């Protein structure tokens, strides 16, 4: 039960929790939050994989940075879409 395995399992649990939230919740802001949690789960798996070798694997770190930027741009779009969806007053 090394540290890497512990964080791998933790990442998988976060990913499953996010998936569960995405399937179950109805309020769109909460679903966006659960997609973010799912993303953090995958990133934790990737960083744990990177931590296997003595000096951490730079490719995985670069991929997670890319994933983070992709996640925030998708979240920004989804949030603005969910807000614009209900704005009856101003349109």
């Amino acid at each position: 039960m090394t540290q890497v395995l512990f964080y791998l399992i933790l990442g998988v649990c976060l990913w499953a929790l996010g998936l569960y939230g995405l399937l179950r919740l109805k309020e769109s802001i909460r679903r966006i939050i659960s997609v973010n949690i799912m993303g953090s789960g995958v990133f934790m798996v990737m960083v744990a994989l990177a931590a296997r070798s003595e000096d951490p694997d730079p490719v995985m770190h670069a991929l997670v940075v890319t994933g983070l930027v992709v996640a925030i741009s998708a979240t920004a779009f989804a949030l603005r879409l969910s807000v614009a969806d209900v704005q009856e007053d101003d349109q």
Partner: protein
Amino acid sequence: MTAALIALLLPLFTALCLLLLRSRSGVLVIVTSLLTLLAAAWSLYDVTVNGPQWLELGDWPPPLAIRFQLQPITALLLVFSAMIHLLVAVYAAGSQHSKTRYTDFWPLSCLLQGSLNALWLSGDLFNWYVTLELLGLAAVALVALSGRKAYGPALNYLLLSLGASLVYLLGVALAYGRYGVLDISLLGAMTEADTTTRIAWWLMTLGLMLKAALWPFHLWLPRAHASAPTAVSALLSALVVKGPLFILWRLWSEGAPTELAVEAGPVLAVAGIAALILGGWSALRTPWLKSLVAYSTVAQLGYALMALGLLMYWQLPALDAALWLFVLAHGLAKASMFLAAGELQASLGSKRVSALRGTTETMPVAMFAFAVAGGSLIGLPPSGGFLAKWLLLEPMFETVNHWPWVVGILLGTLISAGYVFRVVALAFDRADPVPPDFSPDRFAHWLALLPALVVWGLALISEPLIHWLTGVPL
């Protein structure tokens, strides 16, 4: 390889210039689509002459760098997506009814084409994740163009697409964890069938099936495509759903070990048949014209899924040709069907199928385009659809115990004939009195007819087509 690179970078540059100049002129986009088509055609010629080529980005050695791979099938897909883009750009600029003229449709469609070309060329698992994300965001942005009524389905499409990308990404992480390499062709040499690989491949498959709206995960597609503007739904149905299918094909035919592929083949084939039957059934029952066409997309993708499943199950590379002919034929037919349906709906002013009564009188050309495209979807003899179905059926005739697959295809053809003739039969009734502001757009009708005729012409060039797709020498 330079031609393919030009076909990839040209749309990206145009999109950036359009944004910088804040111009919304369709002419610039049409010219670029034409140039991209020429570049793609040149790359097709280049690849048929001196064979497949690789381009390591930045000249780094293989395991590290991302590699662009130019195969005959990739060049053909580049030509196919450039053709569809050119058609839709001309429609969006030319037709009166298209609502997308004064919006950001132009840079978004250029970015869509750029990301699709990047997807066809790339061979790296994580690079595919980024291109899929780019594709998904562009598609949702285009769906959201048609105003407030499209925000709900667009948001649902976006969230499911993000979830599917993360399912795919977890598969990629596990595959990288297990083999330490991201390039698909290098992976192909290293993979062996153990639990981690099986789970990683199934995760990637589930993520991609949701993004390609394949059968069990297709529920978001009809609402998203029906509420999108006509030009956008044509783009989405013909091109965007094909990207993930291409990755699925590369994953299973190139990346996965054979016993894993043989084990997963029947599951995908059965899902294909289910897509055919259930997709067709909902297309038969839906009262709305555009969601009928959208459901038919789900059904037709069942053919492609079945071809992929059988390809893996019997390890028969000849079925590649069937799979990609289905994709090409369906893309062309669906583009013309959506343009025709959009025109019919815009001129008659009603979304229902029942409003199409007597359109052969009022709008003969649009209805003819719809019927011809429907013919190719069913697979009537000289069309591209028939060619693909024939190639799919050929290996099944060898042994008698393949009969369940043949019955599946038969049922699928019956149901697709059902929902196409449901519309065409209605069109031959007596026309209701025409609404006062009835102004059919002749130019758009002829434009919708063009791809339908091209798909029927596929049979004429079937010999070189099959040669390109299977790599069998002429």
